């Protein structure tokens, strides 16, 4: 199958399970939203897919991309197929956007190596992320939304070859963005998902319901439901997972959800 899948993945740190026997899939061409309360294991799942679990973490089960098991791959090979944009990426303020995006080519280099054609990839990635105009600006001068685009462009530059996209994992991509930038970013994510699997974690359930093709609901490391937004995000599930009452309204331009505290 073309796409990304978790197969009975478990992750534990010092005996405490962060992810517990989780399986889900994210087909290419679709945006998959990973939702669940704080501490549900969403970010840990993304890190497990990218192969950057903390040092003390142990894991079982596996991850497949287009049918290929990722666990056995060398780190650099894996980094060409899967790109992760984390919530808190340090940005060196004096680096230009172009220099930052060039770092996306790291998995294609040996330690002392050097390869031609990088600039072509960097230009293409900047263009795909709508960040060509930012190329010569320093990161310290960029707004949050612009910076997020540069991080996205860096992830796009990791791809194995031009026209051969890598899977994209986005941890809370809309965090700290105002509504206009949120919509722009989501539209960009939508375009990028045309030919690759995109998985993003989101806290805003209405945003997930409106902008994702598939939703995976996780709680305490386990997968509770997986499928289309309206099948997964029901008032009953929101009540049992988050402990709040929810009213879900479908509107022509998306989904609106209102919440109330549960009456005792």
């Amino acid at each position, binding site marked *: 199958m073309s796409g990304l899948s978790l197969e009975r993945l478990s992750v534990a740190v010092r005996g405490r399970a962060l992810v517990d026997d989780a399986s889900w899939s994210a087909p290419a061409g679709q945006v998959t939203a990973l939702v669940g309360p704080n501490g549900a294991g969403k970010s840990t799942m993304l890190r497990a897919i990218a192969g950057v679990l903390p040092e003390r973490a142990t894991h079982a089960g596996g991850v497949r991309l287009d049918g290929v098991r990722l666990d056995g791959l060398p780190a650099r090979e894996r980094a060409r197929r899967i790109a992760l944009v984390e919530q808190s990426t340090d940005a060196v303020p004096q680096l230009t956007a172009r220099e930052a995006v060039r770092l996306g080519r790291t998995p294609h280099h040996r330690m002392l190596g050097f390869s031609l054609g990088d600039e072509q990839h960097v230009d293409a990635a900047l263009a795909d992320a709508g960040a060509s105009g930012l190329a010569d*600006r320093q990161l310290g001068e960029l707004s949050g939304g612009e910076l997020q685009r540069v991080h996205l462009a860096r992830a796009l530059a990791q791809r194995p070859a031009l026209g051969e996209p890598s899977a994209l994992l986005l941890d809370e991509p809309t965090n700290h963005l105002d509504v206009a930038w949120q919509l722009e970013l989501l539209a960009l994510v939508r375009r990028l998902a045309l030919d690759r699997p995109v998985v993003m974690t989101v806290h805003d359930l209405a945003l997930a319901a409106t902008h994702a093709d598939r939703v995976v609901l996780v709680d305490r490391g386990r997968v509770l439901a997986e499928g289309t937004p309206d099948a997964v995000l029901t008032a009953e599930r929101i009540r049992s997972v988050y402990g709040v009452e929810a009213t879900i309204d479908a509107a022509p331009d998306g989904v609106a959800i209102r919440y109330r505290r549960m009456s005792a």
Partner: protein
Amino acid sequence: MTRTVGDRRVADGSSRPAATPAGPGARPTARSRAGRAWALVGLGGLLVALGVAAACIGVAGVAPADALAAVAARLGIGASPLGPVGDAIVVDLRLPRILAAAAVGAGLAIVGAVMQALVRNPLADPYLLGVSSGASVGAVLVLVTGLGASLTAGLGGIGAAALPAAAFAGALLALVATLGLAGAAGGATPTRTVLAGVVVASAASAVVSLVIFWRADGDAFREILAWLLGSLAASTWASAAIALVGVVLALPLLASGRVLDALALGDSAAGALGVDVRRTRWLLLVACALVTGALVSVSGAIGFVGLVVPHAVRLLVGASHALLLPASGLAGAIVLLVADTVARAAFDPRELPVGIVTALIGAPVFAALMLTGRVRS
């Protein structure tokens, strides 16, 4: 329905007017890579010119052409216009000291830039791993016991190597202690590395103080103080050679620029780019400590060069390490060469330990960089 959201503006999000003002801090940052590379050529030219100037400056003034001719004559090209005394001053006294100063300065600045990236801390310098404190223990032990002098009396030139050898051994022990402590605590993450370095440095400093307090008097005390402050006064062709070896060891570090840029994103982000973070950091820390150990063994712990030069050079060539590392090396060589020339010539007939000069220059420069908001992690 969802597909149409925001489609109009996404063509080029960067042009969204309200969110992309140039901002008060916007500087013309579109300096081309070629322009920045020219900075390397400029620094290199300046270093050579200052090197020639330093060979001419001192109690015995020499014209630049004569100094160059004297060096050429020693290499077997032409005849020296200087007498045997002038010849000896330029070629046997000043030249090795100039080379040692340039090599130590270059090495310290490169290692400082690498360390700042490895531990993601703008305060990092080459001595972060406790290397200089460990070297001080070795050196002070030799100076206090008079071991170097007695060995020199017995063995000649080999005995003179006792001091740098003991200093280097002390540096290695400190490195092993620091990385061992960080590793035992769960791995050499930036924070653990810094903390372990502080612990080892404090312990080594305590040993140095104890030894001085217990045993040192008169001449030994003066010698120890000069060593602790950092000085190139004792430079010979042998110490210049050790310092140059240190710089040669530092050359592979120059190629780590891309990896250092990736590490600056954070350990996890670097890992997601396929970098083996633990192995890379460990290798580079060991390389840095070896280079620092070699440099410290000939010059003592000269402060501020490894801390301030990388910050200043970032203003010149940007933060990307591919250029920052070689530019820091050249700038560090220039700074220490100038400082050492001032140290030996400005207060004639007395000579200052160069560490005092670098601190006197470095502290206000660092303060200025801080006040203008240019010191960033």
